């Protein structure tokens, strides 16, 4: 398909260190303006963290990066989201293709009710991968730091794992096809501190090969893993509750020398 080819090869002349150039003017759910004016460049080979109070539109922006929001009736985006130089909201672009190149890990672990092996092999089969599936599955499970725990029961159901293991399984499933970008929406929110640290280590490991965008409620986590941090907030002035990007920059700058008063207050924990 022609769109696939376009996505694989970046147009010459685009800024080479940006994987997804997200320029949101407005995002609506029906009549509700959920997010406005947010330009979030996702840089290649880095982890971009999204932080901000609940309801400020972090998930909304993240999910519009691979057109997951198209599943929601009434969703509408004004603006441009360029992935390797191609606007993914342009006419004729199939969201299915976009999602094959931009993988996603959700807040709740959501393995399929099939074996551990089949869960990881799912994307490979979907993409008609002709090579050594077993090798790819093992590689993905090793990367997700799950291999040692499941290597003797690959035929067991993915649902038989613990919550933390399930989440790592979902990460393995997402990375098995080696997507270009990985979107993670609060991937650790259902996990204990130890599992959380393992997944953070994993993100730092994955960063070598992938570009990651990470939504997190945990500011320590953003500090530990994100190279770049985007701070969103909500604007309740015009009656609605519209989210917008307040500030984006190197994580250290955002946390140690924020430019706006709003960011300062949020980081000091004065509101959440």
């Amino acid at each position, binding site marked *: 398909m022609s769109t696939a080819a376009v996505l694989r090869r970046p147009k010459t002349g685009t800024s080479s260190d940006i994987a997804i150039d997200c320029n949101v003017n407005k995002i609506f759910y029906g009549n509700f303006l959920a997010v406005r004016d947010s330009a979030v460049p996702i840089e290649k080979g880095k982890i971009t963290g999204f932080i901000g109070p609940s309801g400020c539109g972090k998930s909304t922006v993240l999910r519009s990066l691979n057109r997951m929001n198209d599943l929601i009736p009434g969703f509408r985006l004004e603006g441009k989201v360029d992935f390797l130089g191609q606007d993914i909201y342009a006419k004729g672009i199939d969201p*299915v293709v976009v999602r*094959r190149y931009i*993988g996603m890990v959700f807040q709740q672990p959501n393995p*399929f*009710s099939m074996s551990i092996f089949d869960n990881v092999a799912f994307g490979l089969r979907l*993409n008609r991968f002709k090579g050594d599936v077993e090798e790819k599955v093992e590689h993905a499970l090793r990367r997700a730091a799950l291999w040692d725990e499941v290597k003797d029961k690959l035929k067991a*159901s993915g*649902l*038989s794992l613990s919550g933390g293991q399930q989440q790592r399984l979902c990460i393995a499933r*997402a990375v098995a096809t080696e997507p270009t970008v990985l979107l993670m929406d609060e991937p650790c929110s259902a996990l204990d501190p130890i599992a959380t640290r393992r997944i953070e280590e994993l993100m730092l490991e994955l960063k070598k090969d992938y570009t990651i965008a990470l939504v997190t409620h945990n500011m320590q986590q953003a500090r530990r893993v994100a190279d770049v941090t985007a701070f969103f907030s909500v604007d309740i002035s015009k009656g609605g509750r519209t989210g917008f990007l307040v500030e984006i920059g190197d994580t250290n700058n955002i946390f140690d020398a924020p430019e706006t008063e709003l960011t300062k207050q949020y980081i000091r924990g004065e509101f959440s």
Partner: protein
Amino acid sequence: MSVQFVVPGSKSVSRPPSVAAYLVDRTFFFIAALGALIIIALVAYILWEIGGQALPAIRTSGAKFLINTGWDAQRGNFGILPQIWGTLYSSLLALAIGGFIGITIAIFLTQDFLPPRIAVIFRTLIEMLAAIPSVVFGLWGIFVVIPFVRPGANWLFEHAGFIPFFGSSLSGPGLLPAVIVLSIMILPTVAAISQDAIGLVPYKIKEAAYGMGATRWEAILKVIVPTASGGIFSALVLGFGRALGETMALAMLIGNSNQISLSLFSPANTLAALLASNFPEAAQPERQALMYAALVLLAITLVVNVFGTLILIWTSQKVAKA
């Protein structure tokens, strides 16, 4: 009286459930247990009663009853192999057709193919099919289905009669019209229960499938339907049970002829149809034989349901196993 954990002077409003609440609890338990017992007793009683009436026939013909092919009330010669064959053959065919269509409808009505309002109308229409009396289906079969399929069936017999399924002509009632009507009759059961099963698949699982870049059909066939497979399987077992026991429409449509044939166009017979058409005028030895046949039908239905349940438990255990 139960314990209370009271700290003197505390303002806690916590207190144990009231005596009445415990009483209601107990009462509900008894009512539920009683209901279960009544059902078990009823099934046992029916088995006992039919078994008792069938006993003379069981004594005289024994297991031969199951493999004999004639039904001769004058000579007292009874066998139900053609009826067993007809029951299973027609039910399996109806399950294949009605099951396939029912599951397809369930997918169409649950996966946002139709605007919600139209989906509701469709759903209601299909549920209304379940309320149509069996006799009406039978009449519809005689006056609409048979004339409709006859030309095609006879064309197939003439041009492809060497294929066993088309090995005879359709002169009126026969297996094919019976199977068509039976498929439609089990369709609402299969569709309704499959819809519920598919509706129970969590949204996050669908999201995961689409998030991997699955197309709509890939998500449905590779993730959503397999996730709902337990419930869909139950739907098929129930539909099959309905087909096995369906009486009136089949007695009107299947031709009531005791032969064993693969041909879709030849008349056949089923256990339920045999009972319905012979019982009213049956005298003594035949009556006992009919009771024996009823017992066999009951046994088949029971075996199907038990097997269905076992397979369901077995597969869900496989899923839950660590």
